């Protein structure tokens, strides 16, 4: 029975992924035909934010530890790759690694004291750290050039991780998203994944089963921070210019959270769905309403969010999942009973 359900569901998932790939292929094709940089840019942003939101989901969704300061790790990745290149002449490829190392160190510094406590301490700390990082980036002008920002030196080459053609970045973000989703999948099917859900559900019960909650949460935060930093680095190399108010903004943190919440907290495909919906929506309402009444785009965005949270609080992906399960159950009820209930057929 379960087998059948799984198969049908997996088939649907495959259809969905295929549809997605098709959309990407179209987006690839259309700009090359029409030179539509707008759509290409949007697709890159969708996939980049899907990857970022999935990274956030590892700690925020799977472990249930609400971080509102992931812009810290994003900004660290962005600044690390650019500054190491400019100041030390380090190749951006190594800069990626440097950003990851710094982000992981930062995550451990934030997580170690907070995860030993229960309650809102972690969330509050992430908000504070996010703000502190932004002010540091503004004020440490010797290191970061302050609020003027930094431009990436325009030397296009593979070794500089800098490309004149924008579609190369599309390939990069597709690979990045693939790596993040693959990792999420592996984590979900591993000891760590099970432990994180157990901790989210009941930390006392988790401890009674030998789970070191602090360690599991720290590990997932470090993984999440590492991927977020990579996303920041790619963002910097793509936009060729960064400043504190863009890469360390609370808005970056906010987007990662909201996409995962709308798509489905703790799910593999949720953040991707969230990004597919919200990035275009954001751009659309910004383009249509942003110029007319100041702040109207934010109000509309907020109203849509509230509607989603009120109607499907568990997110879009779990809702779709339960629809498919209903369809499967209907299909099952048409099967002869003895076949549907044979216990042996359930073993995977």
């Amino acid at each position, binding site marked *: 029975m*379960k087998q059948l359900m799984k198969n049908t569901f997996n088939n649907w998932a495959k259809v969905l992924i295929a549809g997605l790939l098709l959309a990407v292929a179209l987006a690839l094709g259309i700009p090359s035909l029409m030179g539509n940089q707008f759509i290409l840019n949007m697709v890159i942003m969708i996939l980049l934010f899907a990857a970022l939101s999935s990274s956030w989901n590892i700690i925020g969704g799977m472990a249930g530890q609400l971080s509102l300061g992931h812009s810290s790790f994003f900004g660290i990745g962005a600044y690390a790759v650019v500054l190491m290149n400019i100041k030390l002449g380090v190749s951006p490829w190594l800069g990626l690694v440097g950003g990851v190392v710094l982000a992981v160190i930062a995550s451990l510094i934030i997580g170690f004291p907070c995860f030993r406590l229960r309650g809102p301490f972690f969330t509050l700390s992430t908000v504070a750290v996010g703000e502190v990082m932004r002010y540091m980036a503004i004020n440490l002008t010797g290191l970061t050039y302050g609020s003027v920002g930094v431009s990436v030196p325009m030397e296009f080459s593979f070794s500089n991780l800098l490309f004149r053609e924008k579609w190369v970045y599309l390939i990069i973000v597709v690979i990045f998203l693939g790596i993040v989703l693959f990792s999420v999948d592996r984590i979900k*099917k*591993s*000891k760590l994944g*099970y*432990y994180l*859900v*157990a901790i989210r*559900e*009941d930390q*006392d*019960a*988790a*401890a*009674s*089963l*030998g*789970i*070191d*909650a602090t360690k599991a949460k720290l590990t997932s935060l470090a993984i999440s921070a590492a991927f977020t930093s990579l996303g920041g680095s790619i963002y910097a190399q793509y936009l060729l210019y960064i400043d504190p108010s863009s890469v360390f903004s609370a808005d970056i943190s906010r987007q990662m959270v909201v996409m995962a919440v709308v798509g489905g907290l703790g799910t593999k495909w949720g953040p991707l769905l969230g990004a597919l919906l919200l990035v275009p929506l954001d751009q659309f309402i910004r383009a249509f309403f942003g110029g007319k009444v100041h702040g109207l785009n934010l109000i509309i965005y907020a109203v849509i969010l509230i509607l989603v949270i009120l109607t499907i609080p568990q997110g879009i992906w779990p809702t779709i999942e339960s629809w498919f399960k209903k369809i499967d159950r209907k299909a099952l009820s048409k099967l002869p009973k003895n076949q549907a209930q044979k*216990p042996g057929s*359930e073993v995977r």
Partner: protein
Amino acid sequence: MGKIIEVVNVSKYFGGLPAVNNVSFDVEEREILGLIGPNGAGKTTLFNLIAGYHTLTHGKVLFQGKLISHLRPNKICDMGVARTFQVVKPFGEMTVEENVMVGAFNLYSDINTVRTKAQEVIERLDLTSERQQPAKSLTIADRKKLELARALATEPKVLMLDEVMAGLRPNEVDAFLNIIRELQASGITIIVVEHIMRAIMSICERLIVLDHGEKIAEGNPQEVTNNPAVIKSYLGKEYQADA
């Protein structure tokens, strides 16, 4: 057979209130020890002290001769002391199988091994037909079984059961008693807190009675239930009349 757990002069004060006051006892390997007493006598607090959920005010707890008080609960579980909770704490969003798998991950890392181990425990506790159900959809009896299954999946040497039979129907209690006897036969030491005297009398080899945080009696079930102090504080005169 030696002592597997030694509780030595253990006290726990909440503010100025002694919840457990200078309690000492040993648990012999492979025995079933019953812990009884009126509500608020400190039974659950004593469990929490042994399992590391509360820090001791005084005294110490040894497991196989090693000091375990002041260790964190997860370390104590790693050493081989598992517990269930009186108020069951299933991982509601997970299925029964996944719940048990979380316990099995304590010793094994490979997911297929873990799934096999979990299935063994699930079959042992007769939860097979509920295997794929989310834990939050279970009946109270099955939740209690799941609580036990999860603890069992960590492959403990000592299992502490906090009122796993409370609120169950008599036939469900009998099923539980059989399971507990089987567990003992497989070599696990068991400490039970329970109010159902029928259950206690039929499985426990030794009883310890707590009242107001103090140990007031210890011995085999017959001795203890005839002890005037126990009858006065816990069992009541009617119990003596019945017996």
